[in-house]
């Protein structure tokens, strides 16, 4: 069967499942059905992608009468569909267990399959109308999921901010399509490809797409909805929004920048590089400061989106300068990171959901000691945290290493601006990777190690079996993708060829699963070797310790500095862990101020330290906009209370004014 038709049928079946979920609020039906359908979709997309089949197209007579609905399945859309369906399948498996703890299943079950359908329809769209309809469907169904727990004011606020940002993004994409289609109205992507826009139009469309796709992906300063919406949504939905939906936004950006806009100009890459770098740095710093587990993960998503955009910016610059091998490297790194981020971010959100289910707490300072109580979850979270922190032999290391390899090709740029900027980007990637490691060491250490900081954490039990399987599967995938990255890089070949006209050298030829992005003489990495080293040195150390010292595992009271106070609150806290980093970056990034209230000698009250931090972006950009809207609304408010005759007079006056204008102007 035609894979495209099959994928469309999968989407249709998901929609039917959404209706079924609305009628029969049956957990197993919805998540089981979504799992089966997503697996089918994954198989279809992978068959097309790995089989390197030719692009398939289909025009259905629905939608706008003169346009119809165009669908197309090519390498790029097949890759993102495979990613979306993989994420959907794992989240559905997780949902089978997690959904049982849901307080209001009626507000989640109908929208969950609809959200999956929306996300997996966007990459198939081949005209502006279908694309925007699918895009909005994705936005609205995810909005419904964000506001599922609508009784808390915090969640309603998150839903509102998300809706406003989604509407803004869709408007920008609409304008971008309008600019590209031009006056003739060629809204099919094929028509846009056939007539690449002029330089000015292309730059305008690119700016609009960066705003439109960037607001959905979480590019600073449009990322404000992410840390609000992700904690509000149920955890498997957070995983999907973070792991898959942001990738669909990346797809939209790639579709425009590398396909529809024609040959790039090197200057295009500048705003993308700078925005990507700023996003990555801001995201990781916020993640390091954050004490809410799910908000922390959301900020980390912002960081990773920044890295992906940075890499795509490099690819765009290399492509514009005809350095196609380097462009292929940067592009492959970006795509690989998109896939990797989907794997480990879904895993981490699943873990956060398991912790939330077990303890009811998201605040790191109410957790702790979960390693003994939630063994599966903890191990999975450990692997996920190590992967996202970019530690070998896991997958996060590979893609970030490839990004750095691409940065190291920066001196090949003919423009001095790019040569210098590439170096700065290398510094940003290194800084971000280091800070991410700190953020996740903190996350894991505070939440899972030490002693429980609350009675809920002390009585936590491990997650349901299906939740464990989903997490274990993703942890295994992170490990496998880190050990055998060559297979993935070779699989991504058609993607890079379609986008930048070249591909990385074939990795399968290199023995012992090594990868060499440019040439083996220059740099190479072998995940298997690192794993063997880790395992060997780790077990040797364990053997030596247990052999030479004692074989028994002892549990002793924690060192209390001589004060016999067993309160777990005396442990290192999340805030104290982040303190050194806050001291260095806080004043600049968050306008952080610390006030120390030290008691005078002889006073019995405790010393207090109070830290004030404020979100510069919210205060500087969004708050003024909000105030302006409120002011205009207040000013226009009397219009709500006119009499019928006054309303008619307003209409009449407007008509007369326009006619007068016509009479005077023409």
């Amino acid at each position, binding site marked *: 069967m035609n894979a495209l038709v099959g994928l469309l049928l999968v989407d249709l079946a998901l929609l039917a499942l959404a209706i079924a979920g609305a009628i029969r609020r049956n957990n197993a039906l919805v998540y089981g059905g979504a799992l089966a359908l997503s697996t089918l979709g994954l198989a279809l997309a992978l068959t097309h992608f790995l089989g390197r089949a030719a692009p398939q197209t289909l025009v259905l007579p629905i939608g706008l009468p003169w346009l119809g609905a165009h669908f197309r399945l090519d390498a790029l859309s097949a890759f993102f569909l495979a990613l979306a369906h993989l994420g959907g399948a794992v989240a559905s498996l997780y949902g089978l267990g997690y959904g049982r703890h849901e307080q209001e299943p009626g507000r989640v079950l109908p929208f969950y399959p609809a959200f999956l359908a929306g996300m997996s329809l966007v990459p198939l769209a081949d005209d502006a109308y279908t694309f925007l309809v699918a895009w909005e469907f994705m936005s609205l169904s995810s909005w419904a999921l964000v506001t599922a727990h609508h009784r808390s004011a915090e969640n309603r606020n998150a839903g509102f901010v998300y809706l406003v940002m989604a509407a803004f993004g869709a408007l920008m994409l609409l304008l971008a399509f309008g600019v590209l289609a031009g006056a003739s109205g060629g809204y099919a992507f094929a028509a846009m490809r056939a007539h690449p826009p002029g330089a000015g139009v292309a730059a305008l469309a690119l700016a609009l797409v960066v705003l439109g796709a960037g607001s959905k992906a979480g590019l600073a300063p449009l990322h404000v909805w992410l840390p609000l919406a992700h904690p509000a949504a149920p955890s498997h939905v957070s995983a999907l929004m973070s792991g898959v939906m942001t990738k669909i936004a990346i797809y939209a950006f790639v579709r425009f920048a590398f396909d529809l806009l024609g040959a790039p100009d090197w200057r295009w890459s500048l705003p993308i590089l700078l925005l990507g770098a700023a996003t990555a740095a801001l995201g990781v710093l916020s993640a390091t400061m954050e004490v809410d587990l799910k908000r922390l993960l959301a900020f980390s998503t912002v960081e990773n989106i920044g890295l992906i955009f940075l890499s795509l910016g490099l690819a765009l610059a290399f492509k514009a300068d005809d350095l196609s091998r380097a462009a292929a490297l940067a592009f492959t790194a970006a795509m690989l990171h998109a896939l990797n981020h989907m794997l480990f971010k879904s895993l981490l959100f699943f873990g956060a959901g398991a912790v939330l289910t077990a303890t009811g707490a998201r605040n790191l300072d109410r957790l702790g000691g979960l390693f003994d109580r939630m063994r599966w979850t903890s191990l999975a979270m450990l692997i996920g945290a190590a992967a996202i922190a970019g530690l070998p032999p896991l997958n996060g290391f590979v893609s970030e290493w490839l990004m750095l390899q691409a940065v190291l090709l920066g001196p090949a740029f003919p423009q001095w601006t790019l040569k210098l900027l590439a170096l700065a980007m290398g510094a940003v990637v290194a800084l971000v990777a280091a800070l991410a490691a700190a953020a996740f060491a903190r996350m894991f250490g505070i939440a899972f190690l030490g002693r429980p900081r609350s009675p809920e954490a002390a009585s936590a039990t491990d997650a349901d079996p299906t939740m464990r399987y989903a997490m274990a599967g993703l942890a295994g995938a992170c490990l496998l993708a880190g050990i055998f990255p060559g297979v993935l890089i070779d699989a991504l070949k058609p993607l890079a060829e379609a986008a930048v006209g070249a591909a990385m050298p074939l990795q399968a030829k290199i023995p012992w699963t090594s990868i060499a992005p440019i040439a083996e003489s220059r740099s190479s990495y072998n995940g298997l070797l690192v794993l063997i080293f880790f395992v060997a040195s780790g077990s040797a150390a364990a053997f030596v310790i247990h052999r030479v010292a004692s074989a028994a595992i002892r549990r002793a009271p924690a060192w209390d500095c001589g004060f016999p106070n067993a309160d777990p609150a005396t442990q290192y806290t999340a805030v104290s862990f982040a303190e050194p980093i806050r001291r260095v970056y806080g004043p600049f990034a968050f306008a952080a101020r610390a006030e120390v209230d030290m008691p005078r000698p002889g006073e019995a009250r405790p010393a207090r330290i109070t830290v004030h931090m404020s979100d510069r972006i919210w205060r500087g950009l969004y708050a003024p906009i909000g105030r302006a809207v409120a002011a205009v609304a207040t000013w226009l408010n009397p219009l709500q*209370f006119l009499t*019928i*005759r006054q309303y*008619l007079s307003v209409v*009449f006056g407007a008509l*007369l004014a326009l*006619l007068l204008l016509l*009479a005077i102007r*023409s």
Partner: protein
Amino acid sequence: MSGLDFDVSHLLAGGLVLVSFMLLYQTRIYALLNVYAAQAFVLSLAVVWQAFVQDKPHLYATAAVAFLFKAALIPYALHRAIDRLGLRREVENVVGIGATMLAGLACVALAIVVMLRIENEADALAREDLAFALAVILLGLLMMVVRRNVVSMVIGFMSLENGLILAAAGAKGMPLVVEFAVAFSVVVALVVIYVFLFRLQDRFGGVDVGVLEDFQGSRR
């Protein structure tokens, strides 16, 4: 186009504008209804003439619809409604008659200036017709704005519709569908306003729209 064709259609369309001024001037309800019926009659004559001149048989149907509904049925229905309401009051104007007439003159002048600007693109008949139609529309709106009584607002609205029909008949190649839609919208409006009138009478014991304003909620 021969001189006679042009002159007669000019006469009829001008007559329509003249009757609009009579509507604007008239302050008693029954007389207002009669003038409205006269306007609809002039409209149907204008449409018949257009049908004859343009050789469009379907315009005869439009004229018949206009005559049947607007010159006969609607005035009759409103007569009955007013009878049942026991309403024999004079219509209150918000603005004085003199000022209203002056504003009406300005509206007609504006309509003619706007339409005469598009000299070269349309033929003379269509242009003149559109100018008159726009004038009728503006006068209808003006009437809705300056009257306080619901019945006269309704009549202002329907005379506005008459202007639309005149424009539709004058423009060449307007399909019949549009005219039926316009006629239908008037009937719907009549039904809605009929209900509105009775509800208003039931609830508040009067047909002055001012009483609605008390129910609009508090002003902030």
